[in-house]
């Protein structure tokens, strides 16, 4: 971006309204529609709209408007989210899926910090999420601890377990790093299967969340309306996702993000700069694992059941594929990608046993057509640089 373009008049605001409204409508439609023909039509319209927006500068206009009016954007997203929740208020399944999408998206935000920003490879995201989930289950059995603390503990234990891996993660790079985490992910699973203390292959049941006396398993009665109990989870996961989104965004725009870039792009140069690579790597690894553990605990509480089969190497791959499909290193990409990856297999139920092959072919098609993911990483644009 040339300096002169910064001094241009502010862009119009309306693209932002259109974009948020469209996203909300598309999301609701995708969650609600069960009829496959209608669903196909909705997907086609969404794709066409996105294509046209990209083709005729709508995306760029939205980006400009978003960066110029950050608070308006946040406000619009909040309003749109509430509207979506209102429309879906008694659709238990839709809300469950929505909360699941948000949980996956947040875990993948953590992965974005690890893989997209700091260039670490992590093929054990599901294992870290599982660590959080099992922490919640075990603490729940003891009782006594308030749930807010239990969830945070989920994140902290994931960080602790992750810290056992720090040495190998720091020492290895690229594919070797991939193996380290992959081995851990597989090991996590085999261990839980073999071990009876943590419920073995049959898993453990755990109660829903009770946050400060508010029981998440009850339906909400408000203004004469009955809202599904899952609204609780959607609101909680929505808030957590928003917080993670803001946090990761701040991280990316701050100097920490620049250090991450340096670590990722050229480790040799980074060490010449006298930068403590290990420090930044550990920081990124910790942030990612905390988010995974936290959301894993929420997930376990929400589904009320936890078993090794929920956190396999395959699930870690799903999370990595969300990050890649979304466009590695772009935090906004995880949202549409999580939506596609989590919701699509569910929506494809009608083709029954042909689901998996269809899904694989679809991902291959996306990768071939958009090698950089749905939303590509943007070149860093620092405020400092813009004002210079």
């Amino acid at each position, binding site marked *: 971006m040339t300096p002169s373009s910064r001094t241009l008049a502010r862009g119009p605001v309306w693209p932002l309204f259109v974009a948020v409204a469209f996203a909300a409508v598309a999301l609701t439609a995708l969650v609600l529609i069960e009829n496959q023909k209608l669903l196909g039509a909705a997907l086609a319209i969404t794709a066409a709209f996105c294509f046209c927006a990209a083709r005729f500068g709508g995306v760029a206009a939205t980006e400009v408007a978003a960066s110029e009016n950050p608070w308006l954007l946040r406000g619009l997203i909040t309003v749109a989210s509430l509207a979506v929740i209102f429309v879906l208020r008694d659709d238990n399944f839709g809300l469950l899926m929505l909360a699941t999408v948000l949980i996956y998206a947040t875990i993948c935000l953590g992965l974005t910090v690890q893989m997209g920003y700091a260039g670490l490879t992590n093929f054990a995201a599901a294992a870290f999420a599982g660590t959080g989930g099992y922490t919640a289950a075990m603490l729940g059995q003891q009782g006594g601890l308030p749930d807010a603390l239990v969830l945070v503990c989920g994140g902290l234990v994931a960080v602790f377990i992750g810290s056992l891996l720090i040495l190998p993660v720091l020492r290895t790079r690229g594919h070797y790093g991939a193996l380290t985490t992959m081995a851990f992910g597989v090991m996590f699973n085999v261990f839980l299967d073999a071990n009876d203390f943590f419920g073995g292959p049959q898993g453990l049941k755990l109660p829903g969340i009770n946050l400060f006396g508010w029981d998440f398993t009850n339906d909400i009665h408000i203004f004469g309306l009955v809202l599904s109990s899952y609204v609780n989870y959607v609101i909680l996961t929505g808030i957590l996702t928003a917080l993670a989104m803001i946090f990761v965004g701040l991280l990316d725009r701050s100097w920490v993000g620049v250090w991450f870039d340096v670590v990722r792009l050229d480790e040799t140069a980074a060490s010449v700069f006298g930068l403590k690579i290990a420090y930044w790597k550990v920081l990124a690894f910790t942030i990612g694992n905390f988010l995974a553990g936290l959301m894993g605990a929420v997930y376990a509480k929400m589904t009320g059941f936890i078993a090794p089969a929920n956190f396999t190497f395959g699930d870690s791959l799903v999370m990595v594929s969300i990050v890649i499909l979304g466009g590695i290193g772009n935090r906004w990409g995880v949202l549409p990608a999580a939506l596609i990856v989590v919701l699509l297999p569910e929506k494809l139920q009608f083709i029954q046993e042909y689901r998996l092959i*269809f899904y694989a*072919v679809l991902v291959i098609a996306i990768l071939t057509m958009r090698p950089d993911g749905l939303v590509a990483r943007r070149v860093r644009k620092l405020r400092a640089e813009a004002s210079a």
Partner: protein
Amino acid sequence: MGTITKRGLAALAVASVLPLAFGSFSAAFAKDKVKIAFVGPLTGAISPHGIGGRNSAELAVKLMNAEPNTKYEYELVVLDDECKPNVGVQVVTKIASDRSIIAAIPHYCSATAIATVDIFNRFKMPMVVWAAVLPEITYAKKYPEVHRVSGILIGQNRIGAQFMKARGYKKFVSFADSTDYGKSMNKYFTQFTLENGSEILGSFSVPPDQQDLSAELTKIKELNPEVIYFGGLTPLGARLRTQMAKFGINAQLEGNSGIMGDAFVNAAGPELAEGTLTFFDSPPLSKMPGGKMFSDAYKAAGYSEPPEAYGPFAYVATRLVMETIEKVGPDRAKVTADLGDVKDRPSIVGPVTFDDHGQNITPLTTSYVVQDGKWVVWEESEYVSGKRKLKNLP
């Protein structure tokens, strides 16, 4: 790659035709439509069972709809739980929150069923499990919504242990997969075998996808048991039988419901499968009251996949649900209440009686042996007459 894309396209084509085919027989009459849901594993290694169950459930719906005097037109909603608890929770939440679906016929895998019974209870949706065998599904809690037509694995193991004791076997090795299924099988096998005063020389547990069993088999060969007890499903079971032969281990193989079916005999080959024993909670189709009707209708419907061992149970569960709806109307609470009273209800597998936990308690456990590439009821086999002999008989 050319072939793969073509196959992908073929899959797409088939995928788009399937729902049309299923939908076509539902628009015939102006009866009220009632939806019921079938849940089972349609992808993954044990999908043959899920697909066999689905076909059987579908057959039940088809036959019911063809009857002129029914009050409702039934539609089967089919969902894949991938044999994973979290996916099971998802799809069950989906059907349970869909008010137009009255009842469900869920699950082949026990861990999945254990995870979802709470949801059925929470959403007050009646269901009849068609295949999962762990006792905890019906007995862990007393949920009025939860019923099961298939047997639980305790019976298989009790009868199996008695059978082996009667033949004089004393030295056993247990070989089970590391899933909940294998572990439970091993637990009850161990309990009943030790009660009989027999000896278990060693217990092995391997992941169901482990291919090479040579390390375990070398150890087993050293232990030299009379019988190898297997607690697991067909793929691993066939692998075990094949590799036992390669190592020259001449022990008698004893299995359970998990290897019951033609797939085991095909994969191990008729020669190696010969003489393998299993104890399974169902008589053969030919012995069932409605077995002939079922197999003829199944054949006539033109399914390319076999119904597998639990197909008849999926049929019975679906039929039972539909009969109840005919009786009390499409209302979840009424269906739940009426299912609680099922006693000596005739079905193609024999009378169904639910106990206070919703468990079918009609004893159906039958002993089978492979003879000339077919599973034969023990009492009718040439092994009883002494014409053929089990291995390693003391």
